[in-house]
Structures are given as C-alpha cells and as structure tokens.
C-alpha cells in the first residue's frame, strides 16, 4: 500500500478517530498521518468532525478500488491465506467466548451476565487467555506476510492483561481498545486486505 492508501485504510478500520489513533493502527508516524488525512479531507475523500475522520462515499470508493492494486501479492500468498483461515477458525471461538462473557445460561435460558459470579468470570477469562496463547503462532504467521499487523498482537496482549488484572471492561467494552474491539479491527483489516466479506 502507498502511504495515502494506508492512511485511508486506517480510517476505515478506526472510525471517527483522530489522526494519532489512525497512525497507531497503520504504523505511520502521527505527524505524517495527520498531514495525509488533512490532504485527503481537502480533496473530499474524508470528512473531519469533532477531531475525528470518516470516509466520504467517494473516499470509500477510491479506497475499496485500490486494495486489489496494493494487496495482490498478499492475496496470492498461500501461507498468509492459510493463516487467515486459521484466524477465521479462532474467530468463531472468540465470538463464543465474548458471548459467554456477556451472557449466562441459566436453566436453558440466556440472561445477561451481571458479573456477580466470580468463578464463572474467571473461567471465561481463562478461556480467553488460552485462546490468546493458541492464537499467537497464527498471528506470527500473519505478521510474516504483513508486518504492521504486529501492532494488533501488542494491543490484544494489553487488553488481556488489563482484564486479567480485574478491569473487566477490557474484555468487550466498545468505547475502549478492549480485546473484542482490537480483535474486530484486526478482522476488519484482514477482510479489507484480502477483499473478503463478513458473514454476520
């Protein structure tokens, strides 16, 4: 990807975010990202509101059309594709773990998990930690093909450690870089790079 495409790609993943957050996702410097985003805003590819950037319909079209140009090699990379397929398998597990974190099955019915049962929470968190460790070699394989993805490994590790230290909002809270937030961004990143479509 060239830097402009990379910056727009970052905006697509990190919605309504300031330049610094976009920079962190794509691994460019904050200053460079800021300049690129301002440039894109001036040419109508982005809109800026309350300090955050979002793609305009035209910007989205340009971005989407350019993936095939920049990502062709990766889309042909058998090892990368294989690692991506493993990601999708682990993704099913992750979604189940997050669901189990948010809900309790009580006598056959699903109710909201109010986190009053510490043993249950510890069990689910343990499963998340286990998934995280099993996912490490898969991510390493992905990073081989696309080095900037290493950033997700660090962000996932950070979220997990926060959650393990008792700050439970770091599992699935939407407004922070929780495990689920970061995981979802990684998923979105991979889908865009590989030109695939989310199923649900």
């Amino acid at each position, binding site marked *: 990807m060239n830097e402009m495409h990379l910056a727009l790609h970052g905006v697509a993943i990190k919605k309504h975010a300031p330049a610094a957050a976009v920079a962190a996702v794509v691994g460019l410097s904050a200053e460079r990202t800021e300049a690129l985003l301002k440039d894109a805003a001036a040419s109508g590819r982005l809109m800026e509101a309350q300090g955050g950037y979002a793609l305009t319909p035209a910007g989205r079209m340009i971005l989407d059309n350019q993936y095939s140009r920049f990502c062709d090699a990766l889309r042909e990379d058998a090892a990368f594709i294989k690692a991506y397929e493993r990601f999708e398998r682990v993704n099913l597990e992750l979604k189940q773990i997050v669901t189990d974190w948010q809900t309790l099955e*009580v*006598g056959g019915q699903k109710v*909201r998990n109010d986190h009053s049962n510490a043993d249950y929470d510890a069990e689910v968190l343990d499963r998340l930690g286990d998934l995280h*460790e099993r996912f490490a*070699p898969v991510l390493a394989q992905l990073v081989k093909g696309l080095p900037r993805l290493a950033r997700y490994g660090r962000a996932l590790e950070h979220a997990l450690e926060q959650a393990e230290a008792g700050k439970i909002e770091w599992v699935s809270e939407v407004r922070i870089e929780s495990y*689920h937030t970061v995981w979802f961004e990684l998923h979105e990143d991979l889908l865009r790079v590989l030109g695939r479509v989310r199923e649900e």
Partner: protein
Amino acid sequence: MTQFLGEFLLAIEGGALPDRNLIGGKAWSIARMRGLGLSVPPAVVITARACTAFLDTGELPPSLAAELDAGIAWLEAASGARFGAGPQPLLVSVRSGAAISMPGMMDTVLNLGINDDTEAALAALSGDAAFASDTHRRFLDLYARIVLKATLPELAEDATPERWRQTIREETGEAVPTDPRAQLLNAVQAVFESWNSRRARKYREHHGIPDTLGTAVTVQAMVFGNLDAQSGTGVLFSRNPLTGEPAPYGEYLARAQGEDVVSGRFTPQPLSALADQLPAVHAELLAAAETLERENGDVQDIEFTIQQGKLFLLQSRSAKRAPPAAVRFAVDMVKEGRIDEATAVSRVTAEQVRVVLSPCVSDADAAAATVLASGEAACQGVGVGEVVVNTDDAERRALAGEQVVLARLITSPDDVHGMLACQAMATERGGTTSHAAVVSRALGKPCVVGCGVDTVTALAGQIVTVDGTRGKIYAGALPVIAPDENADPLLATLIRWAEARSPITVLATPPAGPLLDLNTVSGGEDEDQLPALLPGHTVVKGGAIASERGVRAALAAGVTTLCASPRLPVLLAALEAQRQLQTNTANDK
C-alpha cells in the same frame, strides 16, 4: 478411607478428607462428595508432589508409570471395566487440580483410553457405532487442542479415525498415541507443564502463591448415559434458577451423553420423565441435591449421569441464577434457616436488582400487540422508536433528539456510532454471537438479531417497539412499565435487611437542609471526578452517585446520606463497597 497406592498416587474413597494442598481442589471435592455418602465415578489422583518432582528434574518421577498402572488397576476394579480393552472399556478424564484454582492450567481431556479397539468394544457395548465413533473423534480433537496445543480445523464427523489422526499430524507434526498408557502419561505431563504457563505464573506472582506448590492430576472413570434404557444424563438445580421457586428443576435425556444435551440436537425432557422411568434413582438424586444444598449453603447445579441404572454425580457447584431467582433464593433461604440475613444481602448484586426493576412490556400488551418480526433475543430490555436503516442517518437523527431504532442486514464496526445513538436495534442475519449481539450487550442496548432477510429493514419509517427480552419487534409504541421496589414483598424484605447493615443512609426523597446535587455540578455525572467533588459533603444526590463506583466514592469520602430511587441497588452497592474496604484493610495488615 482414601488410600495411597504409591508414593505419588491416591485412590479417592470416603472417610477422612486428605490434604487439599496435596490433591487439589477438584479431587478434594470428589472426596468430600464421597464422604457425604454420594455416588461419584471412581477416581484416583496424582499428588502435587509428583508435579514438584517434575518441575525439579524436568522428567516424570521414574516410579510414576508403575504407580499409574496400579491406579488404573484400582479404577478397573472399582468400575468393572478395562482400560484400553473390551468388552466393557474403561475411558478416563484427566484434569488438572491445584489447591487454588488458577488460570492457564490445562483443560480437561475426556474419553482418554480410546483407540480403534476400544471404539469397536464401545460400539458393541452400546449398540451405537455412531456414538463410539463420535467419542473417538472428540477425544482426538481434545487431545490435539489441549495436549498438543493445536489450532485444529473441525474434524469431519463422517471421516475415519485414520483421517482425523492424519489431519492432526499435518497440523502439529505430532501423532496421537494409540496406546492408552502413553496417552495418559502424555496428558499427565502436559498438566504438569501447564503449571508453568505464562498466565499461571503471573497469577501466582500476583497472588503470592508459591511456585513450588505444584498441581495434582485427577484421573476419573468416564460413565456413559447411553448404554441401555436404564441409562441417561441430565442437569438438576436444587431450586428453579430462572424464577427462584423452591422446587427442584432439571432436565433429563434418556440414553444420551452430556454432549447430546449441550449440542441441542436432542430436546431434553423435564425431570418428571426420570421420576416415571427410574423412580428410585430420581428419589436418590433429589436427596443428593438436598444434601449438597444444605452442606454448601447455596443453591446447587448438579450434573449427573445414570449408567445401567446406577446414579453418578459428575459435578456440583453453586448455581448460576437469573436476577429474579437471586432475589428469591436469598429471601427464602433465610426463612428456612439455611443462611443468615447478612449472607442473603451479599448474594444479590445491585445490577441484579436493576435488571429486576428494568422497564418491560407487560404480558397482556405483548400478547395483544402485532408482531412485525421475530428473531433471537440478543440483549434484554425494551426500546421504542422509528426504524432507520442507514447508520449515519440514525446517528444524526438521534443526536437531534429523535428516538430511533437501527435496523440492518448485519452490523460491522462501521455501524457502532449508530448503535451508540439509537434506542434499540435489530438485524436480519446472524445469531447470538454476531457483531450486533456482542456490541449491543456491551452497550446495554435492547437488540433482536437474525430476524430474516428483508424483515426489519423493510420497516423503515415505522414506529416500533423492540423487545430484546422476548426477541420480538412489535408495531407501534407499546406502554413500557417500570416495576416498583416497594410493592414487591421480596425486594421490600431485602431493603429492610440491607438498610439495617448499610454504612450509608439511602433516601428516596431528599431531606430538608444542605445537600450537594451533582446534577448541578460540572463533572458530577463522571465517576472519575467524584473523589474530588464529594469531600466535605454529607448529603448527596444526582449525577453518578447511584452507580457502584459512585457509592464507593461516597463511602470513601465520608458521605452519610445518599438520595436515590430505587434505593435497593444503592444499598447493595454500599454493602459491597464496605466488604471491599474490609477485605483491602485485612490484606494490608
């Protein structure tokens, strides 16, 4: 009596309880159930001393293989089955068990001991070749994931064991042994190795647990609920975990394994089916539930299997409960003399009471309403608004003060800003683990998912009521009712008990005199700012004061009176905050 079969190995029987540090929590609870005269599958335990020896030398103690043989022989005698051979094959579960449970330890491997020969024997014994094959597949899957730590593709149900083993070899470069003894030794070693996993080490460091403690390994005979008409499996709650009604509640599935119940492939029957089919076993089960509830002082969730007419209890633990049940358990168990009032109020959380008091659509209104769409209930609660299908429009109109319901085919991170702004949401595709379901629960927004293509998005422009509890989208704006804490006798009782113990007075209406109204103070709705805003005030209302963190901040700042309604969640949060303070003080000493 529990007896040593070697330096490192004990057989678990009734009688005096062995040292919990030596045999770990799981084996200890099996021993305790045996001690209460309850029937559990035979088990042996490798003590934590063997783990310590392994950690010292990096190798299993030389005598362990022979001791495990003695343990297996004991299990064979106790179960009347043979390890790795027919006609009745003995399969075992292998689980880790330290004295203190901690994250990062190895998960349980089930059905260990199966290979082509024992699969054939199991097929002949059960008369069900598909079951035997599935048992084999599930063992290989667990062994590969847990012992070999593989990220495995699904092992296809219709393939052969040879094909499954090949998939595992391709993924991991390692083979699963066919010799049951080798399977067992490898699994034991994997448990010991998991003691030094990153998470286990970190947890011990954080909690000051010595690294030298080590973990025990429990090896327990598997029992089968699908061998004949006198076999089955089920779950029993000592009381109803949904409503709280003080009557046993459960499900039973004749001629089935536990996984059949979980998989949802079969519909379990109510417990009365067991009473009809095997009345003596049913009576024994209810008596066991009563014993366990009394001994543990809490409602129990018991997994059981009946093998050829004999009852086995697999696990008993405090039951997970729906909020209304948490309230009723607490009040009823005090009246029955099983727990005291202080325990009762510690068993109900502020959040559970908020759910009980949360707005809902009445049964009568729901029955009379027109259902426009139905799907899976993803997040409880009720939201009313106009259906909007474009996420940016939904956000813009919500910010302008309109009440909107966001309806999408599916959602993605592109939609989160609209989900934040709307009253409720609905999707056409996806289940309870879909993006929309996960995010709605994180936000606490009522949500129904998987309503079917061209259902909810076709409602654009209509006013609807999204009932995230029932999984329905109703036409029009239905009346939303809010339950009253004072009108409910159970909640009123809890208020009385909580009030008598609360470190802070909680009033529904503000008293006369000076008071801090956080609604009139900048930052008063921000929990992080309360520790700076509260000192010097004794009576406080508004802002974020009624939340758990708000109450904690009030207690720490020396506030004596809070004004909030409903009162019970605040009282329970105050009691919880007080318990935390006491625990922290005790830890500091």
